[in-house]
């Protein structure tokens, strides 16, 4: 008979209780405030870093610093994995084994969807997945969106208590004038519309490039289908209308990629800020658990849709499955 273990209360409940008590104590000293919520990322430098001719001035925003942190984390993981793999290891263990499991999972998924174009499509899918995954998950660690610059505003802010040196603690009683707000140093990278729009443009553009690589210039007949226009007049005309709708749907793909990722992450950030002000004791942990799950899923959906659109672009009209927006 197999040995079963009777379930008993563990010691995790005491750890959670200690954290809840620490939270209650901490709130008395550092009462949570509602930080600035705006769609555009906040500027950390007063003057622009440089000015581009068409696009305009480029400031140092707090999502740009978050991009630096995200890329550093990814490069650190890549360096650790490279250092652990020597030329004669057959089985990777530990952290390297985890990364190998991840890559194998993604590659099997690519092969089952794309067939023989998997080697070309896999770098795009895996890179988009890993960058968006780390951008979504790093948003949840405690350093993000808490430390920042205290800026004086003219109407409606919070009181600032000096902590010594140059550090200020901006806490609870809201004042009418002469108050301070906090502009965080780091804000989640995927809450920036620039990041998601750039990824969406890259994804859709590379889909077209891979389509041309697979089918030659006949790929563009998907968007302007005059192939059957003269052979079968009525159906050829319907094909032409359908191909114009396909063109519109390509632009809809860009917009839907952008706003799906941005909306999910921005809504999560706003929810955490508001719940953190209203019920700061235990509830933000539950919302962070939910945000972890949502971040994982949104990264997977972004990558998976890129994969499916690229696979559809390589196969042409042979199989047509209508992936929704």
């Amino acid at each position, binding site marked *: 008979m197999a040995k079963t273990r009777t379930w008993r209360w563990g010691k995790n409940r005491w750890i959670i209780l200690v954290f809840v008590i620490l939270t209650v104590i901490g709130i008395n000293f550092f009462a949570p405030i509602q930080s600035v919520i705006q769609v555009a990322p906040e500027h950390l430098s007063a003057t622009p870093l440089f000015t581009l001719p068409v696009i305009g001035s480029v400031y140092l925003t707090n999502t740009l610093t978050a991009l630096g942190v995200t890329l550093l984390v990814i490069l650190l993981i890549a360096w650790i994995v490279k250092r652990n793999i020597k030329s004669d290891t057959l089985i990777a263990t530990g952290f390297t084994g985890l990364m190998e499991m991840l890559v194998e999972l993604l590659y099997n998924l690519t092969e089952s969807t794309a067939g023989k174009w998997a080697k070309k499509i896999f770098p795009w899918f895996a890179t988009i997945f890993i960058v968006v995954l780390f951008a979504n998950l790093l948003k949840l660690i405690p350093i993000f969106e808490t430390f920042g610059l205290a800026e004086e505003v003219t109407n409606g802010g919070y009181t600032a208590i000096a902590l010594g040196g140059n550090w200020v603690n901006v806490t609870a009683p809201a004042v009418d004038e002469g108050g301070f707000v906090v502009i965080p140093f780091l804000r989640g990278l995927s809450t920036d519309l620039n990041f998601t729009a750039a990824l969406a443009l890259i994804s859709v553009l590379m889909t077209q490039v891979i389509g041309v690589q697979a089918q030659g210039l006949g790929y563009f007949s998907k968007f302007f289908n005059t192939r059957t226009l003269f052979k079968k007049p009525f159906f050829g005309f319907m094909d032409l209308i359908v191909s114009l709708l396909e063109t519109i749907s390509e632009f809809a793909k860009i917009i839907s990629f952008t706003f*799906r990722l941005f909306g999910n992450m921005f809504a999560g950030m706003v929810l955490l800020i508001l719940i953190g002000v209203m019920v700061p004791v235990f509830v933000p942990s539950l919302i962070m658990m939910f945000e972890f799950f949502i971040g994982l*899923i949104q990264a997977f959906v972004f990558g998976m849709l890129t994969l499916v659109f690229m696979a559809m672009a390589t196969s042409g009209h042979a199989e047509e499955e209508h992936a929704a927006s």
Partner: protein
Amino acid sequence: MTGDLVQAAKFIGAGLSMIGALGAGIGIGLSVQGALEGMSRNPDTYGNLLTNMILGIAFSEAIAIYCLVIAFLMLFVL
């Protein structure tokens, strides 16, 4: 009427635009219904069905998120 009319209109607009999330709720319920029915008929395909169900839920949720983006646009940008 006292107070800021534009601010009131922003709040009303944000509230109205979230009615569109109703469709997403119904859509997610339908896709989970299909997935559960498939899992109960054929328990071997559990993993495959789960992955596709999560994918389908993310698509439906995206429509609700578009409504949320319009609400945020009204509250925080314009």
